[in-house]
């Protein structure tokens, strides 16, 4: 098995980078060792294939002019991006519209809240009576003139009007 250093030397030999003494040794190695010869042949074929695949790129203008053109394009892009980043001053109607959006959202929330509150309000709706414990009451309502009647029915005398007391009802 060929070591890595020998493999590198074969590559260097193929590239013409070895000293004459080393090149002679590698030549001898390739001549006598089948594995070294096979590697040399493979590397040589690969190099040939890569050389054929490369395409030369030729610029239509000089190198300096080409790069200066790229620099100018980059500078133009920087300037335009800076212009775009500066916000334009909003018009009056845009300002009003921007202000009214949260106001309208708040109004909708308030409306919904009031509707819900009116529908489910704890004390809204029917009349409520809390009478004293020793008093029966009858409640009825006349919707025609929005009148609610509360009748205290238990006692014939309920301290609001008393027999023989001229200052009360009798």
């Amino acid at each position, binding site marked *: 098995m060929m070591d890595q250093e020998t493999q590198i030397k074969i590559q260097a030999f193929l590239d013409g980078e070895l000293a004459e003494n080393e090149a002679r040794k590698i030549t001898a190695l390739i001549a006598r060792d089948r594995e070294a010869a096979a590697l040399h042949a493979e590397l040589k074929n690969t190099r040939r294939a890569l050389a054929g695949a490369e395409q030369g790129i030729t610029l239509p203008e000089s190198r300096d002019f080409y790069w200066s053109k790229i620099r100018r394009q980059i500078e133009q892009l920087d300037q335009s991006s800076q212009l775009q980043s500066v916000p334009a001053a909003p018009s009056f109607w845009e300002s009003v519209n921007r202000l009214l959006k949260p*106001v309208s959202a708040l109004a909708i929330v308030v409306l919904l809240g009031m509707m819900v509150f009116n529908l489910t309000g704890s004390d*809204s709706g029917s009349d409520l*009576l809390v009478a004293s414990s020793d008093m029966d009451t009858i409640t009825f309502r006349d919707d025609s003139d929005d009148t609610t009647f509360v*009748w205290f029915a238990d006692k014939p005398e309920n301290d609001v*009007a*008393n027999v023989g007391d001229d200052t009360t009802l009798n």
Partner: protein
Amino acid sequence: MTARTSILKGALSLWLALIALSLFAGAVRADDVKFEAVLIWGTNDEKSPDPSHKPVSEAVAKKLKDFKWSHYFEVARKNVSVSKDEKRVQMSKDCTIVIKLLENNRVEVTLIGKGKTVGTMKKEMKKGSCLVTGGNSSNSTGWFIIIKQTD
């Protein structure tokens, strides 16, 4: 979005805001609410033994027409203005009512007889609303207190 659409949306938003504000303002009761409290005696006698008692108005008589008495006399009438604090109104020597404003246009009326709470009533009221409370009295007579919101 065109400028016209923006203006339209803005106007709609303003309209909604105004509606919300008006509803909110409607939920908050004005400072003073005025009531009229009338103490009435119901009897089948044509005349009251107290000459200061005068027959009730036709409107009041109509309101009480379903009760069993044929004659109703006005014993006392008080005009009351109630604001934040509850208002005590003495209708007779032993009869007092306490009127208190609650939230959502509700009114609490407490009836006190000889210093003792007879009952507490709560009612949603607006201008013209009435709360009529009453009970039996001696000699097959009856008493009533009509509380009407006048403003």
